[in-house]
């Protein structure tokens, strides 16, 4: 999650009172926001010790797990919404996790950096991997092991039989619905199992 504004845009997609599972919940800001403003309950999954501590300090339910090990802990369709924000690109088993998100949640909500954003394209055109606010890492130290675009995710969702309920881009805290693959640095997808 890059900014507070982005986070609030995502939060608006979650129906009030939902039972939420936030995969890669970081320091628990979004869960706290959903709890305080939208009366949502649920859990965050996080691997990093410092983030787990921050969640406990916030009074947010957090379960320390490695997402690469899957979501065996959670029953089918046991959450109203499963959030996977800014996490998918860090995982080795991206496709499996997308399927798992749809299995555990009635609705899946995924956001990730769009590598086809025009500034990224320009950077590659000029011979360098992009280093931006959304992608602040150098090619040799990035945790983003999956490099994908808005359009790529759309195709992956279709391949896995997921139904896209809504999708848009986010650029500088604003929703981008026209040419999002080019104009937005963040891609957002809301889907279910169809």
């Amino acid at each position, binding site marked *: 999650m890059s900014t507070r504004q982005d986070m609030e845009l995502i939060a608006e997609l979650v129906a009030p009172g939902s039972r939420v599972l936030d995969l890669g919940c970081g320091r628990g800001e979004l869960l706290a926001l959903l709890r305080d403003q939208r009366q949502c309950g649920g859990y965050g999954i996080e691997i990093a010790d410092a983030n787990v*501590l921050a969640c*406990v300090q916030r009074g947010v339910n957090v*379960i320390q797990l490695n997402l690469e090990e899957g979501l065996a802990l959670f029953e089918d369709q046991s959450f109203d919404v499963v959030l996977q924000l800014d996490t998918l690109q860090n995982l080795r088993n991206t496709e499996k996790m997308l399927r798992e998100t749809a299995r555990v949640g009635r609705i899946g909500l995924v956001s990730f950096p769009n590598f086809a954003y025009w500034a990224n394209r320009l950077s590659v055109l000029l011979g360098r991997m992009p280093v931006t606010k959304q992608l602040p890492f150098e090619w040799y130290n990035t945790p983003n092991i999956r490099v994908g675009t808005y359009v790529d995710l759309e195709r992956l969702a279709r391949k896995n039989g997921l139904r896209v309920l809504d999708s848009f881009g986010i650029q500088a805290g604003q929703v981008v619905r026209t040419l999002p693959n080019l104009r937005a640095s963040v891609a957002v997808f809301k889907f279910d199992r169809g």
Partner: protein
Amino acid sequence: MQHYTGGLPPDSEAAPSTHKLVRWLGAVSAAILRKSADLFRIAGALKVPLKRDAQPGVRTCSGAGFCFSEAHMGSIGHVTPQRMQFTQPLPLRGGGALPAYELVYETYGKLNAQRNNAVLVCHALNASHHVAGTYEGQTKSVGWWDNLVGPGKPLDTQSFFVIGVNNLGSCFGSTGPMHPNPDPKAGGRAYGADFPVLTVQDWVDSQARLMDALGITQLAAVIGGSLGGMQALDWSLRYPERLRQCIAIAAAPNLSAQNIAFNEVARRAIVTDPDFHGGHFYEHGTLPRRGLRVARMIGHITYLSDDAMDAKFGRELKHNALSYSTQNIEFQIEGYLRHQGDKFSEYFDANTYLLITRALDYFDPAQEHGGSLTRAFAVARSKFQLVSFTTDWRFPPERSREIVKALVDNGLDASYAEIVAPHGHDAFLLDDPRYHGVLRACFANIATALT
């Protein structure tokens, strides 16, 4: 020889490393336990008041920030055990009842006017009610969880009224097998092997009665590690309205076959010792030391990780060269284990060891629910904080995750921290900053909710 960076608790389930420390602690803890047992015998009064003036920072300051820094990570100071008599029989899960009994306990901090800031600390296999602080005149008599409990510590006695209670059947003061059997047929003999077999549930029932007697309707939290964690879980299942937070550390929803197997080896070692005398060794003026030594040695191995043991001892030799003997101590690890066994056999009661390992074996809350832990936790109402340690092979993280799953299935408020720690099961007694950080945050939230 390598040393741990973490602090080593004096009453760890598997006590600390390095030979000097081992000898020092051996002498000290045996002395403490003997003396505290004496103390209980001497203390005739029903309730011995705790010395409350032993808390630095509680009364001496008014400015909150200043106060905290002064009291930060302070010791609770001198503490005094108290005892409570219960005359109403305690019905037991295994049938029958314990006709009358005494519980020894300690308290730290102050119960507030609303009586809602009490935290119960449940002990594991070989610990006691002496959770924190020291006994006057015995500077080395530090409580077994003193790194966690005290002014400014994660379980802050400036906010909470902390209660440590010695479980029934123990050998540290509460009614146990070494005490006189009230049955007229016993003719005034000690219970010995006739002490009723206890379960985690029986302990929790007795603890609940102690809370009644202390005027505590609802606990702010129940916390425990290992077998203590099982008691905390049982509180959440059988007295769901009587606690707001359950904290179970290095716990498991039941013992695995391997766990039970280790317990059985320990029990056989004790029971087959000729000095055991069918559990009535008290009247023979002897102790089944050989059995207890072996029991402790096997238990001790399981509390440490392979890596931790290797880091501490490796293949280090006791002497400069091998003596090519099957009986002598060749490797340091052998000497260490024998020392632990010797120490334990002097202060721990054989019947208590049998009772406590059996209570561990029996604990299985899912059993009454067709094996479904999820169904078992349907009645729970409290919040939960679970912690496990990656190298704990006695109660490994997978076992805590089983509990987490049951909590999540029931939509209960729960957090779970899986701490990467090298020390094995005993990590729950050490002061790893990530582990204590989580507990500190958990208690801080409870304290905030109090005000």
